[in-house]
């Protein structure tokens, strides 16, 4: 599945056009009965940071390992720089891989780990020394050069792995959950370092993670995967604002889903009816629909607001406050609708905004244009 062109609207910034660096064509991997990757096609532009995002078992690591040449595909092709690379051994692909557990050689010092790829390329000692020192400088580990990997902290090991991968300037860098083993604070810091390194090296990066926040922070484009196939491919904004289906909407950040049936149409919108509640307007579903069909509408929490009055043109539902929490920058209002659905609305904390009282009756309002609706198979 390629990018759904229907979703290209002026509101989102399309990825800049680049020359194709990596092309995956109908690539498939089968393990006995199990299809780890359904026939998948994908293009990655030169210098692009593309993230393969998805839950465990979605096939993202399988895809990455086949690009690396460490797993043999069942069928399909891999093209790098316009040349077919499907059967090339990993050392001939001009790639660098940062492994999940770093895979630093435990018997070699930090210096020798970083020097390893240069020694494999038979460079002279002076060049090796210069390049290793330059990279260790960049990752700020010059003082650790003589240590063994196990004498470093997790974050330092991670930086050695990055240095080792970057030192020989591979044109494609593959990263398999490289930050999975780090704690939150270190992870945030390393995310910025990796972005920085990416810009500085100008390399193409294929990055695997199951963390949506990480994917949104770092990527030019995200390829969201599930059950061995691509669900949606696009910029973080596209995936966030125009999810193709419920799975994508749910995976990318908080979302409220309201269930109902389609009662009618109104230009760009459909009228959604809920049992025992006022009807509201939502954007037309992308897929074909019929009147009376079951529909689910997704609204992001920051697009919902809680008020006493009404405003023209907005959707309105009556609700009861169950809890109201000020978390800092944001204030969260937990409300319950007439059909017992609980919804979270988030707004900026300001001097004038006060937490709502528990049990208070309020109106939940939001713009019809912020309401994405899914029908049929998109609900799965």
């Amino acid at each position: 599945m390629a990018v759904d062109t229907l979703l290209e609207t002026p509101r989102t910034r399309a990825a800049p056009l680049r020359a194709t660096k990596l092309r995956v064509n109908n690539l498939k991997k089968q393990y006995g009965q199990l299809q780890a990757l359904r026939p998948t096609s994908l293009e990655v532009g030169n210098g692009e940071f593309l993230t393969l995002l998805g839950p465990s078992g979605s096939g993202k690591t399988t895809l990455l390992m086949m690009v690396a040449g460490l797993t043999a595909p069942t069928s399909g092709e891999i093209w790098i720089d316009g040349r077919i690379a499907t059967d090339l051994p990993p050392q001939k692909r001009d790639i660098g891989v940062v492994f999940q557990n770093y895979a630093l050689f435990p018997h070699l010092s930090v210096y020798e780990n970083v020097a390893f790829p240069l020694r494999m390329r038979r460079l002279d000692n002076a060049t090796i020394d210069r390049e290793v020192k330059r990279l260790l400088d960049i990752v700020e580990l010059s003082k650790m050069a003589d240590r063994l990997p196990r004498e470093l902290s997790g974050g330092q090991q991670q930086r050695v792995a990055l240095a080792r991968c970057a030192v020989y300037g591979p044109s494609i860098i593959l990263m398999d959950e490289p930050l999975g083993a780090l704690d939150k604070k270190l992870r945030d810091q390393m995310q910025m370092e990796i972005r920085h390194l990416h810009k500085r090296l100008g390399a193409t990066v294929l990055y695997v993670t199951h963390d949506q926040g990480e994917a949104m922070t770092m990527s030019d484009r995200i390829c969201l995967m599930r059950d061995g196939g691509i669900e949606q491919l696009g910029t973080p904004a596209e995936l966030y604002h125009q999810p193709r289906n419920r799975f994508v909407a749910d995976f990318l950040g908080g979302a409220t889903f309201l269930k109902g049936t389609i009662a009618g149409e109104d230009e760009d919108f459909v009228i959604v009816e809920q049992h025992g509640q006022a009807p509201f307007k939502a954007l037309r579903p992308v897929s074909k629909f019929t009147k009376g069909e079951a529909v689910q509408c997704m609204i992001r929490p920051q697009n919902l607001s809680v008020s006493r009055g009404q405003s023209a043109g907005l959707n309105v539902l009556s609700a009861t406050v169950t809890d109201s929490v000020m978390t800092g920058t944001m204030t969260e209002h937990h409300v319950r609708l007439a059909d017992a659905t609980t919804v979270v609305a988030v707004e900026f904390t300001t001097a004038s905004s006060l937490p709502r009282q528990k049990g208070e009756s309020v109106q939940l309002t939001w713009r019809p244009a912020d309401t994405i609706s899914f029908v049929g198979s998109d609900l799965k």
Partner: protein
Amino acid sequence: MSAVDQLARPVNPFRIKLSGGILLLPILAFLFIFFIYPLFSMLAISAFDRSGALTFDFYRQALGGRTWSIFLNTLSISLWVTLFTVLLSYPVAYYLATSKGRSTNLILIIVLLPFWTSALVRAFAWMLLLGRNGVINSTMVNLGITEVPADLLFNLFSVLIGMVHALMPIAVLSMLATMQNIDRNLHSAAATLGAEPGDTFWRVFFPISFPGVASAALVTFIVSMGIFVQPSLLGSPRETMVAQLIIQQIDELYNWGLAAAVSVMVLVLSVIIILIFDKLLGIASISGTQQAGGASGKAMRSITAALGTATVAVSRAIRRALPQRKVKEGAFRWVLAVPTLLIVLFLAAPTFFLVPVSFTGSSFMEWPPRGFSLQWYEAYFTSPVWREATVRSIIVALVTATASLAIGVPAAFALTRSKFKGKAIVLPYILLPIVAPNIIVALSLFYYFSSIGLVGTDIGLVIGHTVFAVPYVVLTMIATLSIYDQRLDQAAWTLGATPLTTFRLITLPMIKVGFVTSFLFAFVRSFDEVTVALFISPGLSTTLPKRMWTEAHHSVEPTLAAVSTILIIMVILVITASELLKRRGLGR
């Protein structure tokens, strides 16, 4: 990681071409030609007479009279040996599995010491300890406890002691393998749930460790049925076991048919016991991965629950009887530590009595040694017979170790790294020589070699020893390779190293400890081996253990103590070296 991500285990592009088959072919062919085929062709002669006609004569002989009573005798001795071995090994294994620190490592080394020491040396030690002029009798007479020396040697008692002593290290190791996998948090969890130590042990630890106990018992029983060194050196004719009978039939009577028939009976019995074991516990429990379930599991749960209740009741009663003193946390450990130390002493101490005796001025193995003299060392070093035997043993052991590594290491790589059909049966097939009674394997090799002219040759010895050594090499290398992170290899490939360079610069330096350990293992197996040597190196071209065995039957001179002392020192050096290597490997 999910199942899919794990299945996406990367493949070395070169390995696709060199998949399992080619790496496994040498070992599979070797074991077929020199283990399976000789075994079956020897077994066939139990049912055919000289003219080639089918006959049950040999079985009729085997099932009647003296042979049958020896068979039953073997069963009963093996059962007793199994019982005592398991009972004595459990506390040691438990202590090793649940303690940490320096002392644990030391105890493990002490347990391993007899494992590496020649069975003959250990039997000599018991002869010295239990003999009429031995350590125990002299001490008792000197202290005035008895006036005449007691008859401690050449009876059922001495045979049992010698065999239990010989088999305990294997039993401890196989129990330890299961116990080390038991999560230590289970103890804490049980304690927070209100279980007292007695309850925790019987209701939690023991049931989980049971598969280890069962497999230790299985291995002990099967191995003891094929033993002949201890009953022959430490027992009287009444303790004759089938292995001795087989040797007798071949050496003295040349009755191949009867020897083969007895072998078949032992093998069939072994298979039946393994099948019963499999039925009750599942063969997977040998590796400690499966739990007893069903009816037998239920029965065991009620037994262990009763034992738990009883233990708790006893410990409460003791605490009530001593109300003024608080029972300390560590008390339970001390109750365990003292018997453990005694058992470990029983394992390690006996051989060291041979050391002073080797310097005796007297010409008998007796205690206490008289005077000081180096004559027995001189006798050893100046005798061409001893020297030749020693040199032959060293050369044969070196070649055996090299050959075992050459065919065992590729097999271990194939078994840990590639997937192929029939993998599940390849490992048991390779490990068969460990489980099959040595005497039968040696006998079948003798029969086969006599038909192809390899009897009495060093190459024949090497082949025979490799059959026994290669399973240990495969096991050790699998253990090394299964903890080796293959992503290191992949990292090297992606960084530009060819598969060969990767092996040289990354894989090899990291698995070299496993290599050296395997080599030492195979070397010692061969150097100590006496069963194959007994049949295949007759006459003057003998090995060191064979020479010791012959000597022990002629005259028990202190030369044996001198040779034993040299072997003990060698074992200590080997163990120290491998411990140092291990520590360096861990980077401490």
